[in-house]
Structures are given as structure tokens and as C-alpha cells.
């Protein structure tokens, strides 16, 4: 790593005091301050600190339920935190301010460096310093014939950038490092752009999909249980496709641990024939303009109710699981039950609702209503029947997974019986001679459908970032010079003096070795007479070569 000069204040600024031009000086100084390494450091530190509340407080973008729970637990504090952006830290003004400043600083920092670097790439390696023996590495090549062109050729072969001048050869290597560093910092901007595009033009929706063609869904916002749409996107921009879950396979170990999940769907994309695809937890379904991810699964009991007029209705409702063994709870509601077929008159007090508990593996010897295993080894359904007004038409949004408790409390919805454990195919006859049948279950899958147009940009930028980082950390800039001093000027007895000097421009402990090898190579393997003018042992490698090697 080099010791970079701080870019804070190039001394070039002439004293323009006389004009008291603070209107120019102030922004210029502010800009210099902003683009200094110290500021970058402070901003980096601030960024790290600012991220901490994002992990301590529940975040809306990660888990809305936890935010709501937080509101319940801290009713006073929560609104204050809300105003401070505590539940959306990564979208909050202060977090954005920090990273925008950091990136401004970044741009201000790398543009001049980019310019300097391009200049350095084009310019020839500089002339040799007057006294090579003052350099950190120095050697005299006594046996050498003084053929500088051969030296230059050897250096070129070793991929140094070489310039031969009158009596000297200058060579340089390792622009690699600064190139990598600039690539790295530029790619950070790429990452930011990709993230930005993703949040502007991306969208996602979550959907619980029950197996069966009668439950197929198509990609419109109304069909999602929950969704998010980028601000630059219109609902009609969503790509058209329909999905039908045809099969869901969940494998579990005997211990109950899930082993694998696989969903099979019929896909109907615009402009293509319907096709069958399957996907699993780590390999999403990739459609044109959207990816479909498998987030969860469960069982949807199929329940048929036959009312007092002999009319049957079937409900297929997903029962979300409440524990790891897939003990699942839900409700089946029949608001249209017991409508007199002759008059067509509906009696709201005769609606039917069933609170249900589904156990994929029902215990045989205990009364605990808990499934023993997540797979359907011994399925059983427990129902509690309610009759009365389900309260669906009240306009108050109600959950589809529980009965309306208010109606029960108000006595408008009454419990009328509890079933025994119903097996698949069992019928339970209620007091009023109506019947409930448990017909079996269908699997359901919880899907997340997403599109993020910035993803590829971020991925490519991350690749560049990593490459640049490695180049920057492994690269070492260094220069060497060879000089032939004609007889007379030389203090040695031989007719001419051939000497070499080397200067590592970055921290590079192995340079002595490289220099020695280079000298040996140009002298044809002969050891040089005097290896170091500075008493710094060649062989003493004071550094572990771990790390940046």
C-alpha cells in the first residue's frame, strides 16, 4: 500500500487574498475538504455506525410484523423512532446523506487520480537519478559489457516499461496497482447505480398459491397478497404470465427436519405455449422479466359442507403452519350456506364457519393437538363449527385465517359443535343435520415473484470490484535504472562502470529479491559485486510474504 499524498490542499493555490474572493474560496475549500482521505475515512466510519440501528430495530423492508410488534411493545417510543426513520434506516434521509456524501467524495477523489494515472500510463519512465547508489537498491555489475540494449531487451522480456536514453535505461512496472485501485473505486459507483436502478424499476409480489387449476394466478398486482412497486414503474409494466401449481413435493427426515422442497408449475407466458417447470428453494423459476422463488409451503384442507337444503359447497383454504412440525391452523367459511334455493333469500344468521386445526401426523396416544411430523403420515383435521353472521360484509378488513372475533364476542356467531379427529373421507354430521366432509388436502406454496433490473449491473460491478481490489492490494509499483558511466568519470579501475538502482514506490518487502534476480538476469547469472550500497541486507526479508504476495 502506498503512502498516498493527501489531496486536501495542493500548495498550488496562489494567494488570491487581495480580492477577498471568499465566494470562490469557500466552496473550493469545502470541496477539497470533502474529497480528502480523512473525510472519506470519517464518512466510512459514519456509514458503519449508521447501519447499526438497522440491525437493532426491526426494519419494515425486512419484516413488517416485527415492526408492528415493536409498536405494541413500545407505543410511546415507536412513533418517535418512526419519525427518525428508525424502521427504514436504509432508506432514511440521514443514511442516504452519508452515502451520497461518501460517493461525492469518492468521485471527487478518483477523477483527479484517474487523470494523473492516465498521464502516468502514457508518460515514459523518468530519467535516472544522479546517484543510483543512494537508492534503496543498488548494484554494480562488474562483468557486464555495458550493452544497454541487451539490458533493455531483457527488461522488456520481463514486461517492464522501458525507455533507453543516453547511457541509461529506465524501467517501471506496477501501474497495475493504481489501475486496480481506480477500478475498485469506480466499481463502487457501479454498485450504487445498480442498486439505484433496482429500487426504481424493480418490483416484487408475494403470493400464496394453492395447487389446482382453479387456483391459478396471473401476474397483476391485484393478485398478490403483498407487493412493492418501484417508483418509476407503472402497474401495467408487469410482464404477463400465469402460474398454476400442479405439484409440490416436500421431503423430510425422520427427525422432522426439512430435506428438500420442489414445486412444479404450469407456466403460461405471453407468446409461448404453456409449459411445465419445476423449481426449488435454491433454484428459482426464471421467467422473462421475473423470477419466482419458493419461500414456504403448507397444506390446504379441502372441506365440503352440505347445508340444510342439501346443497354442497367446497372450500380449499390454505392453513398456515404454526410450528416446525406443520401443525396448521385456518378457517373454512361458507357465507353462502343455507340460502333457500326456492326464495333465494339469504339468512345471515345461518352462515357457517369452521375453525380448523390440521395435523399432518396426528399423535395416536396423546391428546395434545400437535403434529408429530411435518409430512402427512397420519393426517387428521379438528374442526370447531360456528353458525351465524360471519361479519364479512362489514367492510372492516378481516383475516382469512381466523374467524371474526368481534362477531363471536357479540354473540352473532355461535359455536355449534366440535368434531372428533376427522380422517380423510370422514363425514361429521352437525346437530341440524348438515354435514361436513374432510376430502383431503392440497399443497400450497408461498411464492415471491421479483424483478430487479439492476441485479446484473451490481453483479458485474462486484466482479470488477473484487478484481480491482486484488490488483490494488497485490500490485507494487517499482522502478529500476541501469547506467553505464564511461571510463574517466568512474571511480573504479575498470574501463566503464555499469550500475543498477531500484526504487520500490510502494511498500514492497520482496523488492530486494526481485532486484537481485533482475541484476542476475542481465549479467547472465553472475552475481553482482556490490549488491547494496545502503547496508540493507539483501537476503534479510523483514516481512512475512503472506498477504499481498
Amino acid at each position: 500500500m502506498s503512502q498516498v499524498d493527501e489531496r486536501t490542499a495542493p500548495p498550488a493555490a496562489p494567494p488570491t487574498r487581495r480580492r477577498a474572493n471568499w465566494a470562490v474560496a469557500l466552496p473550493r475549500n469545502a470541496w477539497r475538504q470533502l474529497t480528502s482521505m480523512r473525510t472519506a475515512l470519517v464518512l466510512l466510519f459514519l456509514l458503519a455506525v449508521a447501519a447499526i440501528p438497522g440491525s437493532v430495530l426491526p426494519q419494515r423492508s425486512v419484516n413488517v410484523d416485527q415492526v408492528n410488534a415493536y409498536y405494541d411493545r413500545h407505543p410511546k417510543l415507536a412513533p418517535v423512532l418512526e419519525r427518525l426513520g428508525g424502521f427504514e434506516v436504509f432508506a432514511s434521509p440521514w443514511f442516504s446523506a452519508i452515502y451520497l456524501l461518501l460517493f461525492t467524495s469518492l468521485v471527487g477523489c478518483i477523477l483527479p487520480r484517474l487523470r494523473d494515472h492516465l498521464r502516468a500510463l502514457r508518460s515514459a519512465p523518468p530519467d535516472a537519478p544522479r546517484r543510483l547508489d543512494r537508492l534503496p537498491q543498488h548494484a554494480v555489475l562488474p562483468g557486464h559489457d555495458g550493452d544497454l540494449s541487451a539490458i533493455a531487451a531483457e527488461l522488456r522480456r520481463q514486461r517492464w516499461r522501458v525507455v533507453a536514453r543516453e547511457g541509461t535505461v529506465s524501467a517501471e512496472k506496477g501501474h497495475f496497482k493504481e489501475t486496480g485501485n481506480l477500478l475498485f473505486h469506480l466499481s463502487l459507483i457501479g454498485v450504487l447505480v445498480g442498486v439505484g436502478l433496482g429500487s426504481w424499476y424493480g418490483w416484487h409480489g408475494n403470493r400464496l398459491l394453492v395447487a389446482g387449476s382453479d387456483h391459478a394466478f396471473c401476474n397483476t398486482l391485484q393478485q398478490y397478497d403483498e407487493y412493492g412497486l418501484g417508483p418509476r414503474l407503472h402497474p401495467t409494466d408487469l410482464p404477463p404470465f400465469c402460474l398454476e401449481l400442479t405439484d409440490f413435493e416436500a421431503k423430510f427426515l425422520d427427525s422432522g427436519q426439512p430435506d428438500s422442497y420442489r414445486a412444479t408449475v404450469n407456466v403460461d407466458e405471453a407468446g409461448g405455449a404453456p409449459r411445465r417447470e419445476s423449481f426449488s428453494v435454491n433454484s428459482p423459476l426464471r421467467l422473462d422479466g421475473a423470477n419466482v422463488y419458493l419461500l414456504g409451503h403448507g397444506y390446504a384442507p379441502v372441506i365440503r359442507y352440505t347445508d340444510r337444503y342439501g346443497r354442497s359447497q367446497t372450500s380449499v383454504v390454505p392453513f398456515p403452519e404454526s410450528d416446525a412440525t406443520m401443525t396448521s391452523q385456518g378457517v373454512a367459511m361458507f357465507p353462502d350456506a343455507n340460502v333457500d334455493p326456492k326464495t333465494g333469500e339469504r339468512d345471515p344468521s345461518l352462515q357457517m364457519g369452521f375453525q380448523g386445526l390440521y395435523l399432518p401426523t396426528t399423535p395416536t396416544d396423546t391428546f395434545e393437538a400437535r403434529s408429530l411430523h411435518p409430512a402427512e403420515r397420519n393426517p387428521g383435521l379438528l374442526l370447531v363449527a360456528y353458525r351465524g353472521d360471519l361479519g364479512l360484509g362489514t367492510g372492516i378488513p378481516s383475516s382469512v385465517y381466523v374467524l371474526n372475533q368481534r362477531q363471536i364476542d357479540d354473540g352473532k356467531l355461535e359455536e355449534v359443535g366440535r368434531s372428533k379427529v376427522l380422517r380423510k373421507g370422514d363425514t361429521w354430521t352437525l346437530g341440524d343435520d348438515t354435514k361436513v366432509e374432510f376430502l383431503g388436502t392440497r399443497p400450497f406454496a408461498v411464492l415471491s415473484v421479483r424483478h430487479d433490473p439492476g441485479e446484473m449491473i451490481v453483479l458485474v460491478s462486484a466482479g470488477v470490484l473484487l478484481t480491482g481490489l486484488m490488483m490494488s492490494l497485490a500490485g507494487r509499483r517499482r522502478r529500476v535504472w541501469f547506467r553505464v558511466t564511461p571510463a574517466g568519470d568512474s571511480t573504479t579501475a575498470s574501463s566503464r562502470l555499469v550500475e543498477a538502482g531500484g526504487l520500490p514506490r510502494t511498500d514492497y518487502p520482496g523488492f530486494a529479491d526481485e532486484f537481485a534476480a533482475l541484476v542476475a538476469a542481465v549479467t547472465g547469472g553472475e552475481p553482482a559485486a556490490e549488491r547494496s550500497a545502503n547496508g540493507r541486507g539483501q537476503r534479510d526479508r523483514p516481512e512475512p510474504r503472506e498477504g499481498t504476495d
Partner: protein
Amino acid sequence: MAELSNLLLVVAILAYLLAMVCHAAEYAFGSRSVVARAATRPARELVAVGAGAPMKADLPPAPPGPPAPPARSGAIAGRAAVIVTALAGLAHLGSVVTRGVAAQRFTWGNMYEFALTITLVATAAWLVLVTRRPELRHLGLFVALAMVLMLGTAGMVFYTEVGPLMPALKSSWFIVHVAGAAFSSGIFLLGFVPAMMYLIRSGYDRGKRSFPYTLGRRVPAAAALERLTFRLHAFAFPIWTFAVAAGAIWAEAAWGRYWGWDPKETWAFISWVVYAGYLHARATPSVKRSTATWIAILGFLTMLMNLIGVNLFFSGLHSYAGV
């Protein structure tokens, strides 16, 4: 197999303790190693000077110190310490391998296994380092101490029965991600040791003689420690970056988004930024080396927070909850 693994872990911890005793004996009887003394010579700052610019005046070569009386018993204890550390590492490796065999998978399915793996990486890296640079041997006491602390905590607090992986964890990107994270964490862990010792040693050099600074008396010279710290961090940082990127790729495949600010991700980001800050600080001449080193230490604390704290305090998507 699982019992064998647990047994080997106990053996490993005891062996690390024994290595500490040997190192301490070397501490007590030995003189400072020759090279460590040599390294005390003020290292000449390499400044980026253009050719032709005046060179910084050379410092006179340090006068060779009076030959140290060979402290044989100390050296023997020191060498024994390294050998015992190697044996401890073997037992440690055995513990990890047998656990892997018992579980039929790589050993990074939960916090306990992860801690076991990163300490193994740190030990292996230390052994490589100390064979190539014997003069760093005195640091071994603190390396072994770190191992005893980490493994002891892992075994007593985080122990988890052998179990299979969740479906979401079965992915090649997951393997790459966790392997990268374990490897870089191990190197960061090892880097933490010279970082601490650098701060102690430079305090000692400034004349502090109270407790933690007295430990600095025999460790390698401050400059050498500082450079070692940097080397290790510069080596680990790209691997850590890669591990985070691989994790993002995996998250994209598993959850549909490459980054979601889940607590584990948030802390990975924090560590990354802090370590980037360390590299920056070290490259900034106006920032003192000790300040930079403090940032590295802070970085390691954030790694620990991610490894342990996040699993304990927050719930997230990362199913590492095996506490």
C-alpha cells in the same frame, strides 16, 4: 463419531493450553529473539519519491547489538510450544473432520461449527507464518490464548448436536460463501492478535509499564507487528469481500434479493466498511498507525458481533440459530 469429535476438541483445547505454558516458559527464561531485536532498528519509511527528487537521508545502519547470551532453555521451550501448537492443530483438525463425517457435510452448519472452523483456519495460518518467520514465535502465546478462549466459548456456550442442513443451505454458492467467510474470519482472527500486541508493544515502547503493556516486553518489535497486522488484513479483506458477494449471489437464488439488510447482512456490511476504513486509514499518512490499528480491532469486534451477537440477539433469515 460425534463423541470422538467432542473428545478431540477437549484434547485440542488442553494442547493449546500446554502450548501457552511452553510459550510462557520461553517468555520467562528466554531472551528476546535475535531477529526481533534486529527488527527494532528504525525502519526507513519508504516514501513515494519521484526519480530525481532528493532522497530521504539514510539512517545509519543500526549498530549490531551485543550478542545475546544464548538462552537455550528458552529457545527449546519456544520450539516445543510451536510443536505443541501444531499437535493441538492436528487434534483440532481431527475434531472438525470427525464432526464433518458424523454430519455428512461441511462443518459450518451452525455457530459452534463455524467457530471451530475459523479457529482452525487461524491456527493453520499461524503455523504457516511461524515456520516462515520463526522470529514471530513470541506471538504464539497470544495466538494460543485466543484459540483457548474461542474454542472454550464455542464448546461451552454454543455447543450444538450434529444435525443436517436446512434446504436453503444446500447450495454450492452457500458452500463457497461460508468457506470464504470462515477462511477470511480465521485470518482476521489471526490478524487481531498482532494488532492487539502492536498496541501493547507501542505503549510499552512509549514507556508504559502497567499491566497490559508489560506483556509487550518480549513480543516482536512494534513496526514488525504493525506490518504483520496489515499483511494479514490485506490478505483477508478481498476474501471477505468475495465471501460477502458469494453470499449475495446465494441470497438472490434463495430469497430473490441479493441484499435485504437482514441483521446478518447488515453486520457483514458494517465489518466490510470498518475494514475498508482500516485500509484507508493505513494508507493515509496523517492518520497515526495506532489509530489505524484500533480500527482493525474494531473491525474484529464487529466480526465477533456478527458471528455471535447477531445469532443471539436478532432473528433473521439466516438459519444459524443453533445456539
